[in-house]
Structure formats: structure tokens, C-alpha cells
């Protein structure tokens, strides 16, 4: 059986499990909306500088809500000792990583899409123009987020301070992603065509490639018993 299809089986298990209860994706969504709302109350609407602040709000919400989802991706395994079972499967450990990564990617992307819809309603964004470029940015940012996030979630799942430590570990490492995503989406929202934000997209791509590779290599060490 192919490498990727093995990974897909693991991802599918997570997705189907989540679709059944839907509790994580719902809390992620709710949390994302709440963050945008809270930020909104902190900022005067109709400010001239509003355009500078909007993307930051969007990506802050994305990051905070995303971490909720990451935490979940290994908790279920840990609580039911399924991680042991997974590790005993005669597959390369990187397959497990990829499966988890796919799952996290799908969840975070879905959350990102809905949060972005909410955001565009609140801030009167013209969706037709910006949907595609923003979608591209979202995908690239989500890859980077899920790549490192899955690795760190595996690292922190066994620890007492699991939730807090995941945030502490992930936020600083995410700085380039949040920066690039916020800056490029800011330009897109201002009406600049995607090529104008090319530098930031290049950064995202570089980040994604590097950290996906590094995470695949290190995942084995993160979960070995």
C-alpha cells in the first residue's frame, strides 16, 4: 500500500471521528469568532488605519483557534493509549506524522475559511475580488502552521502543562508565518494583486518546505517511548 494512502487512512480516521462529534471544530470556530469580536471592541470601527489592523486581527484569531485544534489531535490517542497502537503498526513513523498533519491541515483550513467568512462580513470585504488570493495565502499559512503544530503537539501531549506549553512553544516559531500571512493579506485587502505580495508568499513557501521536512525527520524522536 502506498505511503500516501497509508497516511490518508490515519487522516481519515481523525476526520471521521471529528465529523461524528464535531466538538473540536465547533469550539475552534466559536473561539475564532470570539477573538475577532473581542479585538473589534478594542478597535474603533471606521478608523483610517483600520486596514492596517484588520489582517492582524484575522490572523491572530486563526492562530489562537488553530491551537485548540492542534491540542486535540493527539489527546484522544493519548487518553486511550491508541498512540501505542499506532506506533506498533508496521509503517514508517513519517506516515503517522503525515496522517496527523493532513488531519490537522484539513481542520485548520476549514476553520480558517469559516473564520475568514465571518471576518469579511464584519468588515465588508468584497469577497469576489479577494477570495482566490486570500485562499492561497490561507492554504500556505495553514501548511506551515499544521506542519510545526503537529510536531509540537506530539511533543507536548504527554506533559502536565500540555495546553499552555503547546502555545508557548508554537507562537514564537510561528512568527514568520503570521507576519507573512498578515502582511500579504493586508496588501490583497488593499487591492494589490497577489503578485505584489510575492515576497511574503515566497517566504511562506520556503517556511512550509523547510519545516515540513524538518518535522517529518524529527517526528520519530518526538513520539518514541
Amino acid at each position, binding site marked *: 500500500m502506498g505511503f500516501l494512502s497509508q497516511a490518508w487512512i490515519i487522516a481519515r480516521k481523525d476526520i471521521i471521528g471529528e465529523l461524528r462529534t464535531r466538538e473540536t471544530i465547533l469550539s475552534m470556530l466559536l473561539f475564532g469568532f470570539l477573538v475577532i469580536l473581542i479585538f473589534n471592541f478594542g478597535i474603533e470601527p471606521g478608523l483610517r488605519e483600520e486596514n492596517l489592523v484588520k489582517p492582524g486581527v484575522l490572523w491572530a484569531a486563526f492562530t489562537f483557534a488553530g491551537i485548540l485544534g492542534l491540542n486535540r489531535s493527539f489527546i484522544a490517542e493519548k487518553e486511550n493509549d491508541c498512540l501505542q497502537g499506532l506506533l506498533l503498526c508496521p509503517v514508517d513513523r513519517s506516515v503517522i506524522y503525515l496522517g496527523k498533519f493532513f488531519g490537522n491541515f484539513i481542520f485548520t483550513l476549514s476553520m480558517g475559511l469559516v473564520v475568514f467568512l465571518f471576518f469579511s462580513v464584519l468588515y465588508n470585504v468584497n469577497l469576489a475580488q479577494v477570495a482566490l488570493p486570500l485562499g492561497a495565502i490561507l492554504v500556505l499559512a495553514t501548511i506551515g502552521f499544521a506542519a510545526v503544530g503537529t510536531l509540537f503537539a506530539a511533543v507536548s501531549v504527554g506533559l502536565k502543562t500540555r495546553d499552555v506549553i503547546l502555545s*508557548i512553544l508554537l507562537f514564537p516559531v510561528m512568527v514568520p508565518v503570521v507576519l507573512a500571512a498578515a502582511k500579504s493579506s493586508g496588501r490583497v485587502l488593499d487591492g494589490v494583486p497577489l503578485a505584489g505580495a510575492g515576497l511574503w508568499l515566497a517566504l511562506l513557501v520556503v517556511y512550509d518546505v523547510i519545516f515540513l521536512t524538518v518535522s517529518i525527520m524529527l517526528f520519530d524522536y518526538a513520539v518514541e517511548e
Partner: protein
Amino acid sequence: MEHDTQAAVAGGGSSGGGVTTATTPPLPDSGRTLWFDILGVAAIVSVLVALYGAIVWAPTEAVMGHVQRIFYFHMPSAWVALGPAFTIVFICSIVYLVKKDLRYDRIAGASAELGVLFTTITLLTGPLWAKPIWGAYWTWDPRLTTTLVLWFIYVAYLMLRSSITEGHRRARLSAVFGIVGWIDVPIVFMSIRWWRTIHPTLVTGEGMNLDSSMQAVLLFSLGAITLLYVFLLVVRVRQLDMGSRIDRLRQQFHLR
């Protein structure tokens, strides 16, 4: 107290050897080694000389005045943290994952502590230098901002370490984070620099004219602080080695 400390740690020595089966478990020896003492004296003396050079000997900078003298300790601190300190964390993390020898984990931990120490010094001296010259404590200068993110990464590393008690597990998990963190730093720097060139700050980090004697002081100070870092690293690693040997002795003893 200084003397005692030196004597006690001097004995930590080389990597914690094997299990002894003698009836009297040997205690960590307290023999002193010459090179350690020389290193210590050299470090302290050179730092004092650098201090003299920075405050007394170096000429006053034309534009910035006396406050500029902070730079002679600010910049080397930044360099020591980013250069040797965190790079050693990275290297020792990799070596630990390959060899599973806890000694490398101890070195990584000690180096990270020192790295955070020097990064903190950098982050505190930077604003103190900036305020009188540019009127603001923080200017989002790319290098200082990257240093801030660096601080958060390695504080996270230390927090991860302190939340795990078992030796090998702590070593393994911190190694994973130590590797990712170090690789991230150049990317963070690039992203922040692009950000700041698009929205230029009120001030630039440059604007300092260093004549040759100032450069000499800077270089000397760089060497002095690096030496100090090496000395402190050796001290701390020996202390950790010693702690590890004591733990092992305790286990051996209770198993009898």
C-alpha cells in the same frame, strides 16, 4: 565563596563514567585542574579590561556621546547569545538524538540558560541605549525585534525542560524543539527585516561611526564576553555533571 565554588566544580571532569562496584562508592573528586583556573581568571580579567576600554579608553562617539559606550557590551552579548550559545544548543540537540548520551543534553541545557541570560542583557541594554539617543525605548529595529523573538523561543525551550523530570525524555523532547527553534531564527530575522524595510522605522540601527580604536575595543570586548560565556558554560556543565553523578550514586546506594 568563589574559591570554594571553583574547587568544588573543578572535579566534575570528563563525561560521567561507568558503574563502579567497589564497596565504597567514590565521591566526585575535588581535584583542581589548571586549565579551568586559567580560563576563569582569563575570562574575568579580560572582561574587566574590556570594561575599562569601553568606559575610559575608547573615544567618545561624535553624535551619540557617552551613552554609546553601552554598545561595547550590548553587541557582544547579542553575538554570544545568537552565535555560540544557541548554536551549541542546536548541535548538542542533534548529537544527543544520535548518541543518546545525556552529557550532550546537559551541555545544551546549560548553553540555553546562558543564551537566555545574554539575550536578556541585550534586550535590556538596547532600549537603555536607544532612549537617550532616539527618544524611544523600543524602535522595532529588525535585529532587536528578532532578538526578542529569540528570547521567547529559548525561554520556551527552558520551560519545556523544566516541565519534564525524566532525564532521557526531557533530553529527547527538548532536542526536538531545540532543533526547530534554531532553524527558525534566520527565517524570523528575514521576515522581520522585510517587514521593517516596507514600513521603515523612525530610526535606523546604524548611524554610528566607529574609528579604529573603537573597533579595537569592540573586538576585544567580543572576545572577552565569549571567553566569559565559555567559562560559565564549563562551570555550569560541570555542576550538572556533578548532580548527575550524585543521582547515580544515590541510586546505586539504595539498590544495595
